[in-house]
């Protein structure tokens, strides 16, 4: 058998981690050993992992600092809310409805990604970071004044008030400005895991593809890449839009797990939270993003016993993790353990 390259091996490790996570929690749930706290967090964890992966595509692979990723998540969340409500009567099967909602949410977030990406990606460095931040806030504020209703005639939009929607009898207000969307819960853990595997598949294969190599070449040396004839804006846009679409899908999965979702949720803080997942997991490291997003989502809940000092301790943990992962000694230790294992296994093979 041809020996797998290190990259291919790592991508299988990532699929393995996700599948293992799924199997473990399915077993725990079916044997009744899963606490309500953990059970309620499964779908948010999956959503945040997808968010972290998609942001890692922009920050780690494309090398652009984006601070407005929550904006795309909210586009997906609210699109998903409207689509799933509009289809409630048409498609009674919740799984099909969820999948359609996620696809449309991803498409809408992707379109938002194109619209924002075209002007933004002409900028570089700090300017790009600040403009993405601004666009994230713009999306939030637009959603704050958006009113959407669904009745038999179709979907109605307004930027003024629910009264301006002019709904027929039996119509339903889906998005009510700052009060957010009211939603039927249809997200499922299994669908989330399938989506996560799909996202992983797309990202990992993109990195290995011709396009991926072009994107990374631009990251490493823009001038050299341009001199080789690569269209910089095009390749950056590809990474940015794919990332936005994935964030939209994550947002849809997230929103449809709660009965309500407000635009306020997707503010600057959420963007930074996802960036923290990416940075702590290691920029450009997909395995790290998965683990960091999952652990850091659960951590505040595990710290509940500390009550008011919870977020303080959370911050201390973040700092400690940051120091630990950047410490030469600790890094050397981890590496030496890895080498030891390799030696052992190769030793066994030889024997």
């Amino acid at each position, binding site marked *: 058998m041809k020996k797998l390259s290190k990259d291919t091996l790592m991508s299988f490790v990532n699929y393995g981690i996700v599948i293992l996570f799924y199997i473990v929690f399915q077993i725990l749930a079916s044997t009744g050993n899963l606490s*309500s*706290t953990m059970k309620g967090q499964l779908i948010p964890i999956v959503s945040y992992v997808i968010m972290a992966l998609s942001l890692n595509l922009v920050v780690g692979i494309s090398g652009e600092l984006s601070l407005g990723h929550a904006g795309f998540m909210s586009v997906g969340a609210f699109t998903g809310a409207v689509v799933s409500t509009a289809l409630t009567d048409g498609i009674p099967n919740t799984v099909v409805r969820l999948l359609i909602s996620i696809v449309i949410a991803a498409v809408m977030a992707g379109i938002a990604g194109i619209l924002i990406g075209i002007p933004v990606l002409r900028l570089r460095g700090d300017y790009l970071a600040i403009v993405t931040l601004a666009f994230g806030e713009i999306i939030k504020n637009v959603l*704050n*004044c958006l009113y959407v209703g669904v009745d038999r005639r179709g979907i109605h939009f307004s930027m003024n008030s629910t009264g301006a929607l002019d709904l027929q009898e039996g119509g339903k207000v889906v998005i009510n400005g*700052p009060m957010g969307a009211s939603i039927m819960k249809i997200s499922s853990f299994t669908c989330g895991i399938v989506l996560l595997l799909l996202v992983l598949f797309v990202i990992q294969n993109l990195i290995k593809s011709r396009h991926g190599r072009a994107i990374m070449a631009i990251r490493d040396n823009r001038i050299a890449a341009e001199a080789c004839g690569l269209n910089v804006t095009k390749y950056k846009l590809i990474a940015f839009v794919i990332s936005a679409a994935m964030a939209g899908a994550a947002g849809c999965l997230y929103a449809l797990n709660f009965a309500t979702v407000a635009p306020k949720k997707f503010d600057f803080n959420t963007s930074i939270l996802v960036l923290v997942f990416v940075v702590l997991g290691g920029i450009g490291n997909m395995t790290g993003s998965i683990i960091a997003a999952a652990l850091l989502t659960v951590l505040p809940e595990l710290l*509940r016993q500390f009550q008011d000092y919870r977020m303080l301790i959370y911050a201390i943990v973040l700092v400690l993790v940051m120091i630990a992962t950047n410490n030469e000694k600790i890094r050397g230790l981890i590496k030496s353990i890895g080498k030891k294992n390799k030696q052992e296994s190769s030793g066994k093979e030889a024997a």
Partner: protein
Amino acid sequence: MMKKVLSVLVAGVMALSIVACGATNDASANTGADANNNTTADGSLTGTLKLGMIGPLTGGAALYGNAVDHGVQIAVEEINALGTGFQIDYQAEDDEHDAEKSVNAYNQLKDWGAQVIAGTVTTTPCIAVSAEAYSDRMFMLTPSASSTDVTANKDNMFQLCFSDPNQGSASAKYIAENNLATDVAIIYNNSDAYSSGIYQTFVDAAAEVGLNIVSTTTFTDDTQNDFSVQLADIQQSGAELVFLPIYYQAASLIFQQADQIGLDVKWFGVDGMDGILSLEGFDTSLAEGVMLLTPFAADATDDLTVNFVTKFEEKFGETPIQFAADGYDCPYAIYRALEYYAANNGGLDVTDMSNEELCEILISVFTDPGFSCDGVTGLAMSWNAAGEVNKAPKAVVIENGVYVGL
């Protein structure tokens, strides 16, 4: 080396098995108690109720969450000190005014074994949690989440505060009926569910009662420091009265800035305005003549309020705001409801009752027309099947730095 590992493992397994045995013993003891049926012969209420509270104890809305938490604590202490054999085991969980965290907090309380929830404090998280509670059949009584979305289509969900439509339309009617003004201006926070909820119902009711809305301006959480544009608009429009369906921090700035530009109008607020007099660094003379609809005034002289306010000041060193009063009434409403049920059904022992059973019991009592209870936020409070409370709003005006009933 191998031996050491093995011995540790064996020790661990043994320790675990001991713990496991202990757990099974406990469980059998519990089932034995359950078999006794949950009734006591004499119609009295006994047992320990596990009451959970969810609210923002940290973060930007912590003021409200902590106020409710403190109010509930006082009520629980009082009920536990009655010596009736009924005790409340109370636990509060933080949600940071976030729907996701709120559902986590709810699940945490469920793992703790909560039987009834007093919460959640703020509206958006409450909508998310009430959907969970509805599918789990967990009874919820929110002290302060006022949107109708909170109770809509959920029979297990009740409000202790007025719903937004009630506040908005009650304000409009009060202004019209008492001829306070005909030309009205509004400033509201359009990034806040509470504020825009009241605004919408106020506008609808204003059209009915013939109020003229001459100026409508908004602000958001991010822009609540400068109101010069809004106030200039009001000055131009010639409004006689400004309706402020907002919280008191923003209102205090509006009063200051209106004073600077010499704007002379009447001000009318809702329950979120309560607390303005105890705001640090605020010149209370600016709030002179402000009218507000509130279910609670800390300087009322009835026994219930005096008792509550003294205890609150003693324990927490501050005057309770309306949220604290709402919180204080929640455990009492639940306690009185259980007492009512026990008296009419030959007693009740709540220890280890499932949340489903308690939910059905409490729904039946709360929707029972014969049930009502007194609290510091209103006398003879009763509830309709939609989960909305029925109590009279009090209109007060601020005179010489204190509330005076209108």
